[in-house]
């Protein structure tokens, strides 16, 4: 019965049912057929949202929306362009670097593509870059967002596994920096070979400072947040609220660009996209309850463990599963449905739970860039106005740095764990 529920979900999902109904319909059918109390349906979806860490989701989306509407995104973009625009690839380098800086604030996976990505692709097209290349850089660099703090996927992962959220967020820093470096190197090589346009000269110290100063308060936000958490001023969830207040304050007082209309619009957009995401979290909790009662996680975990008991082998198997899941599921759904099944046996076999968290989320983001059903792919193709085929061709070289990062995350666990360990002392 349990497996039928899973298959029904997949079928409805592929047919184009909204995810929330693809989950709810088989779950309702299960409860009716098994004769469980109907109250379970109401109770489970409500309790699923009764979670303090999940509060960070609307708060970070709010921050992202505010920044886009109040022009902070533009400032960061201009600063990044001044700094690295001269490097071969020019604007493409900005695109990568901008994602690292920007993702530090937005926290949401594809919000990076929808927000900054749109500006970047437009700017690159204007300066004569191939639209497919512009889209490929944007899509590839958007994988940085969810592994660099703050990160909604990491917070959801932490709340599902009760792994320390602070440890997870700190653990994402080194991998994100490494991946940024490898992506910029790739852009450098591709741009040099294809003679892509770049800025005419290096910035003078004055220009760098002039563009840095307006962006500084915005760039300082992640640092302030992490400092606040480290010194006990607030917990991770509270940090999300503090970031929102901080962004409102700097855009109102420093930049003087914040209007009540901005606040109002940001709040409405935030409420809607939070609801669209978290209603799935609520429905997935019901689905997860059914999987648990049907002992599907245990069956699956047992099967997984028979394949190998070597932590590295298990981690590779998990990589494959999450990579495949990422092609089909959005990261929140995949985390909620799969992590409770896969994480326990791996952790029991000796895989570090923090490392597993980073590997999992990075994989899910890679899956977004991979056919048949990568959400990033479709979004980028839509913004850049290129076909999926053209985009995939341009993306090909970028799978090398992305997969290299994944390999380092999988095999060199100290690389990921070094920073969180240091902070824990």
């Amino acid at each position: 019965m349990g497996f039928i529920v899973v298959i029904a979900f997949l079928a409805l999902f592929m047919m184009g049912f909204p995810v929330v109904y693809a989950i709810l319909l088989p779950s309702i059918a299960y409860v009716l057929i098994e004769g469980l109390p109907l109250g379970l349906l109401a109770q489970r979806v409500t309790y699923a949202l009764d979670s303090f860490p999940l509060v960070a989701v609307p708060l970070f989306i709010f921050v992202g929306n505010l920044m886009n509407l109040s022009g902070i995104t533009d400032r960061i973009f201009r600063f990044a362009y001044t700094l690295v625009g001269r490097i071969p690839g020019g604007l493409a380098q900005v695109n990568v670097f901008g994602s690292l800086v920007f993702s530090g604030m937005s926290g949401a996976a594809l919000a990076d593509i929808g927000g900054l990505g749109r500006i970047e692709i437009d700017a690159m097209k204007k300066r004569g870059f191939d639209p497919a290349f512009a889209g490929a850089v944007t899509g590839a660099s958007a994988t940085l967002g969810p592994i660099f703090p703050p990160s909604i996927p990491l917070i959801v992962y932490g709340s599902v596994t009760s792994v320390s959220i602070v440890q997870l967020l700190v653990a994402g820093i080194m991998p994100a920096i490494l991946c940024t470096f490898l992506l910029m190197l790739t852009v450098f090589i591709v741009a040099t070979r294809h003679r892509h346009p770049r800025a005419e000269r290096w910035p003078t110290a004055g220009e760098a400072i002039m563009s840095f100063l307006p962006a500084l308060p915005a760039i300082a936000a992640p640092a302030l947040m992490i400092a606040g958490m480290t010194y006990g001023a607030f917990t991770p969830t509270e940090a999300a609220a503090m970031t929102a207040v901080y962004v409102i304050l700097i855009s109102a007082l420093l930049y003087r660009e914040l209007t009540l209309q901005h606040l109002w619009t940001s709040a409405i957009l935030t409420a809607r996209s939070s609801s669209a995401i978290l209603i799935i979290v609520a429905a997935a909790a019901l689905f997860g309850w059914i999987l648990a009662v049907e002992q599907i996680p245990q069956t699956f975990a047992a099967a997984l463990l028979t394949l190998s008991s070597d932590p590295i082998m298990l981690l590779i198997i998990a990589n494959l599963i999450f990579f495949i899941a990422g092609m089909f599921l959005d990261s929140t759904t995949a985390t909620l449905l799969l992590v409770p099944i896969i994480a326990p046996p791996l952790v029991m076999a000796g895989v570090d739970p923090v490392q597993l968290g980073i590997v999992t989320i990075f994989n899910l983001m890679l899956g977004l860039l991979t056919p048949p059903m990568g959400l990033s792919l479709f979004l980028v193709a839509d913004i850049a106005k290129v076909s999926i085929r053209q985009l995939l061709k341009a993306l090909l070289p970028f799978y090398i740095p992305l997969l290299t990062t994944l390999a380092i995350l999988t095999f060199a666990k100290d690389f990921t764990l070094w920073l969180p360990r240091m902070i824990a002392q």
Partner: protein
Amino acid sequence: MRLPERILTTFVVIIMAGLVLVPTAQVIMRGVFVLPFIGAEEFTRFLLICLIFCAYPLVVEHGENIVMGEFKAALPDRARRMLNLFISLCAIGATGFMGYVTATNISRNLTNATPTLGIPFWIFLGAALFGFAGAAIVHLLHLRKPPQADTNIAV
């Protein structure tokens, strides 16, 4: 914007403000005045539940449900329209049933309340009822439209 939507939007924005302000107030009360408010976390979670359910009819209204529309988009026009109608009917059924179940569950939980602040449980269930019933109504009004926009953006 029609009046019901306008009222609901205003309500949702107020909840959103609360979500930012309550944790901020807690940080200040605890850090500056050493007077933590027992129950701030519970109240914040309460606001989150209200936000998600109350905003859900707006999500449906704007066709923002997350969906994987690639298979559907590849279908011939006629087949796609029939599939969309089928999905709409299922969506009305699912949200309507969830609304009905939540409504019957409220009457059995009248005495139940949260442990710290004593927020009655029927308020939580009431938010869920509002969200599902509201979504069912919007789906019904949209019956001939797909329950989500054809372009899909997931976060």
